[in-house]
């Protein structure tokens, strides 16, 4: 296969991957952020303490998190058809991708929001703020650097999931690597894709780390060098992808 043959394939599938990951990330944030905040608020000692609701939400998140992505995709077929009218193609792949990512992101949000100092919550209450004020003025802004890191992690995990979206004909770089690189022995193309993925993921991680750090006002000192952070951050990310997919 020559470069001129590969190039259109690569650019099209690159776009497909971005399309699927972009939309599902957006949906994951819209769904996962309130869910994660709710997990903290309803917990024992939280502002909206409701142990039953907390257990139910927590359990739903756990079940969704424990499902291998490929199974989730099959299990959600009925739902996907109801939403998009079809079970194949990239729009159809977005549904299970988003649904898989919502609980994943929600757990990360929960951890990030839990880090916020309880004294700040008390301070806002003493000023006469209600629960919504606390969420809007303190919990979300104060955990923003962590929330951005969580988003980065989610995007990288979604790129991993999206490789499996090829099984429902959604295309994407991962699918291209399987079909050409593995099934048609186009090893060169496969390595090119691996290279592209490595570059894309590094770039996303770098951008995420940079954004998180520049928003972090908690300490006066500057963080470790970006390159070091990149290397450190990759290890837990690989583990995350394994446990979810």
């Amino acid at each position, binding site marked *: 296969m020559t470069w001129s043959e590969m190039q259109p394939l690569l650019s099209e599938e690159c776009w497909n991957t971005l399309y699927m990951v972009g939309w599902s990330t957006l949906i994951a944030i819209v769904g996962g952020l309130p869910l994660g905040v709710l997990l903290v608020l309803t917990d024992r000692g939280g502002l909206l303490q409701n142990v039953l609701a907390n257990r139910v939400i927590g359990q739903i998140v756990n079940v969704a998190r424990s499902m291998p992505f490929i199974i989730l995709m099959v299990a959600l077929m009925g739902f996907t058809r109801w939403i998009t009218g079809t079970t194949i193609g990239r729009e159809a792949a977005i549904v299970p991708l988003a649904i898989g990512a919502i609980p994943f992101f929600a757990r990360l949000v929960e951890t990030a929001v839990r880090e916020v100092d309880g004294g700040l919550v008390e301070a806002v209450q003493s*000023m006469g703020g209600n629960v919504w004020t606390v969420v809007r003025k303190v919990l979300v802004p104060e955990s923003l650097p962590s929330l951005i890191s969580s988003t980065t992690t989610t995007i990288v995990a979604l790129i991993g999931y999206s490789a499996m979206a090829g099984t429902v004909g959604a295309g994407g770089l991962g699918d291209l690597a399987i079909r050409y690189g593995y099934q048609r022995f186009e090893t060169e193309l496969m390595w090119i894709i691996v290279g592209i993925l490595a570059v894309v993921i590094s770039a996303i991680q770098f951008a995420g780390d940079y954004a998180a750090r520049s928003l972090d006002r908690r300490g006066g000192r500057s963080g470790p060098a970006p390159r070091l952070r990149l290397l450190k951050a990759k290890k837990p990310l690989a583990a995350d992808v394994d446990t979810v997919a």
Partner: protein
Amino acid sequence: MITTSGLTKVYRSRGREVTALDGVDLHVREGEVYGVIGQSGAGKSSLIRCVNLLERPTAGTVTVAGQDLTALAGRGPRAGRDLRAARSRIGMVFQHFNLVSSRTVQDNVELPLEILGTSGKERSRKALALLDLVGLADKAKSYPAQLSGGQKQRVGIARALAGDPKVLLSDEATSALDPETTRSILQLLRDLNRQLGLTVLLITHEMDVVKSVCDSAALMENGRIVESGTVSDLLATPGSELAAALFPVGGDASAEDRTVIDVTFHGDAATRPVISQLSRTYNIDISILGAAMDTVAGRQVGRMRIELPGRYEDNVVPIGFLREQGLQIELVGAAAEARVLVKDGAK
């Protein structure tokens, strides 16, 4: 200004009950600085949190500025509209400042105003005026992490004042600060109290705080208020633990045949040179074993432990002289026992 009656708070966790407040009656008058002192676990934190109902008391009532807060709907975090409005009129400063790290100093001060729905222009005008008041006008655009502890607490105070409160609650506001900064923060609280007529209720575990700024004080132990009153009233109370702690005097008799007495100065007597008068009138040598004098609320108060030659029986007249001067006398050690013997003998 602040009145609590029968305030009781019981925490229940896993079947165990802990009584943090046990029928606390507190009365803070308008315009005074009132200090509640006690060791950790005495219930101070619960008390101050019950005053603005961050913690809902198990029993009892809290009245602030004539409004019965306990009657307002809502429970703790899920406070109703009326309770939230009442809270916005009570400022609160915290031990660990509790500033929002992602906001600039000015935005932190504006936070309560945002909650009150003040317009943007008015918010920044007021925030800058308050920062000027606490001496941080040049730090408006800094972030809390760039400030020192004392500066952070000044921001905390400016923020607490944003809602024009009549009452300021201070939860160990100086406990995380060094002595020098503590003094400057206390001075600021004192100034605000005078300038704005602000009523301040502060809790602390440091006697120095009470000594340097408080008009009145209460001692808390095991969820109860053991003693309370204005600082000079407390001093006038024989055997007051708080007075003894505020003005500690030590020293033992240098020989067997000596009389040791504690003299408490308060009110007018403190301005007269009574000790030298005593020495001249009765021609006796007086040694001072220890003394703790201070200016509390603009008046000289304090205690002194002095030693008179001779046993108690020999010193009845000089002691009577001191009492006549309006001083309060407590006998220490052997002298106290001797007095009991003399009294018994008289019977």
